[in-house]
């Protein structure tokens, strides 16, 4: 295990960097939009009226706090004490809504009339369409053409909520390309549009802003764990990482608690070396994508590689710059989980606890047997989303 220097920081720097990752690598056409956000986001978020409105919506609309559930049968099976942070019980079925509520309130304070977003599995698209309906703002969601096919129910949900879903037909026709298209839309509509990025990716200040909105997850874990065990800190926090927003939220208040190991599960697809994988830290090297320097799957020539995972929410060729820094500094443990392992973990949780997890989330559960856990260990798994949207995939394994 890498020994950390005591001064290692996991907070974003003034210039938007986490260690050597982050920054704002954006064309000039986006500079004013991103700069407007950068200059205002902290002040907006610190404003008491903003906090009151944000907290009220999290409580009354999202249904927070979400429970911290002691999964006894799973604990027996794994041989450690496993708590599940039930983000799957959020309105819309995943943690994504924590961020979209926060960002739409920011957008309103910046007088934006229209929202653009990208989506992979469709969870962020649904969460964005939901808050746009709530606030009466126009909503345009870019989604890879291939993802639209494999996540059809979420496409219908977004449309029912009044959003326009635009297929991204460039490149690999998945999340990366949907993000490109959303950025192009923002370039074309710089004044009246806010881009709600769904993960801790993109140019500064997005990774920091999204992490702060998602940090409610670890804020609640601390309180709930203290109530249940007498200790705020578990031994491990485990979450899946595509871009990494649920992980950033689950890790946030533990970043500077060295006794808490932070565990990230990436999607290995058909296997890390199979050529069909999305295990970014295993396969990538430093590079720039979607406005930030991060760890990136790419060719020697610097072309971004098309990732693969059974889960549409994890097949992203990069990770958020915070996670790149966690990996680089040794603060986080990264596991590569293959499709089959995730599916098995999804079935295991369903049968042991009566909870069908999203396939993304199942990757986090599949890391548990690989962690060499002791009977005395207390582990919190961020159960980031529910699996209803994945039934078509799961049913192939029934």
């Amino acid at each position, binding site marked *: 295990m890498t020994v950390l220097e005591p001064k290692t920081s996991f907070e974003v720097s003034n210039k938007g960097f986490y260690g050597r990752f982050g920054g704002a690598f954006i064309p000039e056409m986006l500079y004013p939009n991103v700069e407007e956000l950068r200059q205002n986001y902290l002040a907006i978020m610190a404003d008491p009226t903003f906090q009151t409105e944000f907290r009220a919506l999290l409580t009354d609309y999202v249904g927070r706090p979400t429970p911290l559930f002691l999964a006894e049968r799973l604990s027996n099976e794994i041989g450690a004490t496993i708590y599940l942070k039930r983000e799957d019980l959020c309105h819309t079925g995943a943690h994504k809504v924590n961020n979209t509520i926060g960002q739409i309130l920011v957008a309103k304070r910046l007088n934006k009339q229209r929202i653009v977003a990208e989506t992979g599995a469709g969870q962020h698209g649904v969460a964005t369409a939901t808050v746009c309906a709530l606030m009466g703002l126009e909503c345009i969601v870019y989604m890879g053409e291939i993802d639209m096919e494999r996540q059809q129910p979420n496409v219908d949900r977004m449309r029912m909520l009044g959003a326009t879903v635009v297929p991204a037909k460039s490149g690999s026709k998945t999340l990366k390309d949907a993000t490109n298209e959303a950025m192009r839309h923002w370039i074309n509509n710089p004044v009246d549009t806010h881009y709600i990025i769904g993960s801790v990716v993109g140019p500064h200040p997005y990774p920091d802003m999204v992490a702060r909105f998602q940090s409610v997850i670890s804020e609640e874990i601390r309180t709930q764990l203290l109530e249940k065990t007498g200790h705020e800190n578990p031994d491990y926090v485990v979450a899946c990482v595509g871009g990494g927003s649920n992980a950033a939220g689950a890790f946030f208040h533990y970043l500077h608690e060295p006794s808490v190991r932070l565990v990230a599960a990436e999607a290995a697809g058909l296997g890390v070396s199979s050529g069909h994988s999305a295990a970014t830290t295993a396969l990538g090297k430093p590079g720039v994508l*979607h406005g930030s320097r991060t760890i990136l799957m790419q060719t020697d020539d610097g072309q971004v590689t098309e990732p693969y995972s059974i889960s549409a929410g994890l097949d992203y060729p990069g990770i958020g710059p915070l996670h790149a820094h966690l990996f680089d500094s040794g603060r986080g443990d990264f596991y590569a989980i293959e499709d089959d392992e995730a599916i098995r973990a999804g079935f295991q949780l369903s049968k042991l606890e009566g909870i069908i997890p999203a396939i993304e989330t199942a990757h986090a559960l599949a890391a548990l047997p690989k962690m060499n856990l002791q009977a005395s260990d207390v582990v919190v798994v961020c159960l980031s989303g529910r699996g209803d949207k994945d039934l078509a995939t799961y049913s192939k394994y029934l």
Partner: protein
Amino acid sequence: MEAELTKQTNRITHVFTKKSTGLLNVYFTAGFPNLDDTVTVLEGLEKAGADLVEIGMPYSDPVADGETIQQSNMQALENGMTLKTLFEQLADCRSRVSVPILLMGYVNPVLQFGVEAFCQKCQEVGVDGVILPDLPLDLYLDEYEPIFQQYGILNIFLITPQTSDDRIRLIDEHSEGFIYMVSSASITGSTSGVSEQMLAYFDRINAMNLRNPRLIGFGIKDNETFQMANQYANGAIIGSAFIRLLQENGADGNEIAGFVRTIKG
């Protein structure tokens, strides 16, 4: 001293001292439509009378580009184009052409190549300037400006209607060659016409008396838009319209000559 010398002899700087209006900079994607077309198109453009040539380094995720240039990037990558191959293709281009050459692309392939190795190669093959839209100004100033200067490679910056006056002044101060004026808030290949807003922006920039000449790009597609650009700047940059020509007719010298003639009028 050496940097001073290369700066003086830089072909981009030189072309603006010879001519202050009606300059045409034509963009095309390296390795498109066929891998080996790069130098053919370059020579065709020089013969046709292009004043500067901008060679696109294809990238998998060109966020500032519209569909036409995206497609050409994808085609070029499928053809096997890489930065290494491009430098090989350009290795003896200076025995054939004297037109100023810029490389345009995105920062990631350049970072993988190595910024210094990239600038060194540019100097070696006779590239005069670089346009990297997603290389942040502050990072360029903090880390890369001395390297670009050492090899005499001009880094061309973009400004848009939303760029603040203060930022334009800063960009002007650190620019050599010319400033790339993006005509409207858009990606490349936009079809919207000339608006009052656009003209007000051009007037605003003119009134700033910047030290660098300016070329207008994005939305330039025919003689009419080219002439409009000439009224407000030193010339224009045309990209998507030329890519469409290459897509339809291949790297044909006569077609290229006819295209440039039509644009210049």
